[in-house]
């Protein structure tokens, strides 16, 4: 076990993007190019800063920093704390964010209001990392709300009627979730007297208030994670955003909810307590419904991005299911699925963006023959789709395998069936797109030139697709090792 060391890095990765937002905001008056460069550089530096924590984290150290005291006597002290779980999430977020930012430069070049887009994107990065590196629930809550509210701007970027409607739904649900989360945090503080993530098992006596706290957390984080009854905002909000923003919304921001639930299950409560009271069963059931419903509805959708959005709901169900089963393999699967899904869904969404930009078509039935016109994009899309379905050498398989193992360990083969069914359904809605793209008859694409999208877009697409490929069943699998370490930490109760 490592020791606790004070490090400024966690604060840096949060505040640096936020401060750079100002710089970007001022630079953009001078030149758009400089703004784009600055955004990319910011995201790269942030990624490097996150990665720089790796040597210490891998030793098992925990990095802490106390920035300022807001209300000290209420445990409201703006602390930052990075352990292996936080690091996993921060790493994947900053990585995907970096790629999405690079992708944005070409993708957004024809869009309006870029001056609003880039500062928002970078600020959201800071807020999102803030959630992962926060050291207490109050700080976490602050960054959570900041991220939710600021990302509203990303959702409504298009400013169409549809986007505004979806955005309104999003902001309303976000506020409800935020309030529920606030309720949970306040209740925790009331019951435990602390909200710091140093502690585990803050609440271990069952009471009405404790249950209310549990439910409040489920609502608050589940809202963000797209859990079944609270997912209603998701299929509207994700498709209307610009493609890189959708990729981030689906790939990263959904994970903030999952991360929060991890913290709730293992820090606020603990495994024994949740199993004893059977409260966790609520989450398990909802997760199963989420998986089945997300996958089933996705089949009925013909809008490409909408289909991907529903697929996200289903995939988040895996993560929720994994974390609620509480066996080692299941948790490993859940954490690894966070990585996998970030790669896969990030890739899929930006591919979709590339397709839409190129063809102007959103309907999956009209994409016949696109694979020949845009070979690289479609190959990447295919890789990610296959990973989604869970075809063996790809990363999606590895996470599902572990989840299934976990379910069997927990003596609940029923969940394996669920996983299988959902994989089947994944196949049902991904394969037709791919088949149609490569073998379908070419419709209405005569005017499109047979060249792929610009280099910067391709770069991101390819990198993500390669990640799906190599972080599958391969001997050198950094995400898997990190997930294993995080699982050890969670199961060992050594947070």
């Amino acid at each position: 076990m490592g020791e606790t060391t004070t490090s400024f890095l966690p604060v840096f990765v949060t505040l640096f993007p936020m401060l750079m937002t100002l710089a970007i905001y001022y630079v953009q008056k001078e030149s758009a190019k400089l703004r784009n460069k600055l955004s990319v550089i910011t995201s790269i530096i942030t990624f490097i800063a996150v990665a720089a924590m790796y040597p210490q984290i891998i030793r098992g150290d925990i990095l802490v920093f106390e920035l300022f005291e807001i209300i000290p006597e209420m445990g409201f002290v703006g602390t930052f704390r990075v352990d292996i779980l936080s690091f996993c999430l921060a790493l994947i977020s900053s990585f995907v964010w970096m790629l999405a930012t690079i992708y944005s430069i070409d993708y957004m070049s024809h869009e309006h209001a870029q001056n609003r887009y880039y500062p928002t994107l970078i600020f959201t990065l800071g807020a999102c990392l803030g959630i992962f590196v926060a050291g207490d629930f109050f700080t976490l809550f602050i960054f959570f709300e900041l991220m939710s509210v600021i990302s509203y701007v990303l959702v409504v970027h298009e400013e169409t009627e549809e986007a505004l409607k979806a955005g309104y739904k999003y902001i309303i649900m976000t506020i409800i979730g935020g309030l529920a989360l606030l309720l949970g945090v306040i209740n925790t503080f009331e019951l435990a007297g602390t909200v710091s993530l140093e502690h585990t098992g803050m609440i271990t006596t069952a009471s009405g208030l404790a249950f209310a706290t549990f439910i409040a957390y489920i609502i608050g984080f589940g809202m963000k994670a797209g859990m079944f009854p609270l997912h209603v905002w998701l299929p509207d909000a994700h498709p209307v955003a610009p493609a890189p923003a959708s990729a981030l919304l689906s790939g990263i921001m959904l994970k903030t909810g999952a991360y929060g639930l991890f913290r709730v299950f293992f820090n606020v409560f603990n495994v024994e307590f949740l199993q004893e009271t059977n409260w966790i069963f609520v989450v398990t059931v909802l997760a199963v419904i989420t998986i089945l419903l997300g996958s089933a509805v996705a089949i009925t959708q013909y809008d490409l991005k909408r289909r991907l959005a529903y697929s996200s709901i289903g995939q988040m169900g895996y993560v929720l299911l994994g974390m609620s089963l509480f066996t080692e393999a299941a948790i490993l699967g859940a954490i690894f699925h966070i990585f996998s899904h970030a790669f896969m869904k990030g890739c899929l969404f930006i591919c979709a963006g590339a397709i839409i930009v190129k063809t102007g078509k959103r309907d999956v039935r009209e994409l016949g023959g696109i694979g020949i016109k845009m070979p690289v994009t479609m190959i990447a899309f295919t890789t990610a789709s296959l990973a989604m379905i869970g075809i063996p050498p790809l990363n999606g398989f590895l996470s599902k395998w572990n989840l299934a193992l976990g379910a069997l360990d927990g003596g609940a083969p029923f969940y394996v069936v669920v996983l299988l069914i959902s994989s089947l359904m994944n196949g049902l809605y991904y394969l037709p797109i791919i088949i149609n793209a490569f073998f379908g008859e070419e419709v209405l694409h005569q005017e499109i030139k047979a060249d792929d999208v610009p280099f910067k877009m391709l770069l991101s697409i390819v990198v993500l697709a390669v990640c799906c490929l190599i972080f599958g069943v391969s001997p050198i699998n950094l995400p898997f090792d990190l997930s294993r370490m995080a699982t050890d930490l969670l199961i060992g109760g050594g947070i």
Partner: protein
Amino acid sequence: MTFINVIHAHSTVLLIVSFLLFSFLMPILERWKNSWCATMAVAAHVLAFVFIGNLSWRVFTEGTIHYELGGWSPPWGIEFVVDYLALFMLITISTVSFLILIFGTVDLTHELKPKVLGLYYTLYLLLVGAMMGLAVTNDFFNMFVFMEIAAISACGIISVKSDRECVEASFKYLMLSAVGTGCVLLSVALLYMIGGHLNFAFAAAAIQDVAHIYPNNILVALALFSVGFIVKAALFPLHVWLPDAPSSAPSPSSAILSGLVIKIYTVVYLKLLYKVFPIELFDLLPVFDMILILSALSIFFGSIFAIVQEDIKRMLAFSSIAQIGYVFLGIGLANSTGLTGGLLHIFNHAMMKSMLFLSAGAIIYCTGIRKIDDLKGIGLKMPVVMGAFTIGAMAMVGIPTTNGFISKLYLALGTLDANKHFYLAIILISSFLNCLYYFPIVINAFFGESEEEDGEEEIQVKKLPLRMSVPLIILGAGCMIFGIFPKYILVIIERAVEMIL
């Protein structure tokens, strides 16, 4: 006997007298040179900052300051007391009213006829002076006099606008104020009858002694006090004057009415409730529970009414009813966390609501639009104003890093400390309702498309003068700063709460 010594010894009274003297001078000055009035009003505020600076230094180093007017010791003469609570109010009032005034120096030339400007500043100074007097006074009858000064001047700054709604709203406010002050005076009489003292401290001691002989007197007095102050503070069932008054008045008047005037009565009520009335009385009558119920109704209905409003200032006025409910909630919780939240909300809401009213005023100044639906696409044309409005809206909803969040957090913890979960739900629900009526405005302003693009001309936007934008920026920054570093104001509030309980 240097000048510094004089300020040091008499800053309590000089603070109020300087406002009175400046306003007495104003009408003469106005005849001589009209343009100096605004400068005079600003000068009065700057002078007040000097006195308040001195007072805060003394309060922090020496503790509570007692000032005996005319040199007569308390039971015989009037006494001013500056404790942490009063200091807190003084700071709030002086800062916010100063910023509103700076804004008003431009806005008023647009909203009012030039010949009433001098009179407006006179009324404004008297209102501010009276509020400060209410904060420091420790005498029942003196309180009554200050209440009347505040009432008439508050009505005056509504009716100076040449708009017929203004006169009517002002009259309504005046009548209800008269009911309020009448009730307060009657209850002062009831308390004087059995206590024989007018000084708060002496009256409290005397009433404590006779509480078992005349319990009904005290109860009726308490009920009348409550009615009087609830009318003045515009809590739910007796709020009828509020929506009319600030929505028709000139924007600086609306800001000061909604931001400060209703708060000062709340603080006076708080002071009386905790300091004067004997504790065992509250066993006979569940006063705090009644306050809680009223505040819950106020929070709920204020928000509901605000949702259906079309006029932006009217919506803000209804929102004030909801927000004053929070303050009363803090009072009713009667524990230190809740009370801290309530007092903090006084300060925070003073900043947020004045900022919102001022930005509404700036919108009206620049474009002439009052209807919420017409505000589409205005955000990019006036970024400072709508930026301030957005911060205000976020603070109202209670998004973290804004000050509204901190006070709601304290209130929420207070409800849990008092074991009253129902009110926690009320707080959360009302935050949600706030979001329902504040966010559409912001969304429309920034993302909405202006509808009359074809054919009709674009919205004409005047340039925002510096003196209007600076107060908005300061208030906006204040909302953020006190959202992240609330401890600078909590230092005072916590001591005030300690002293009250």
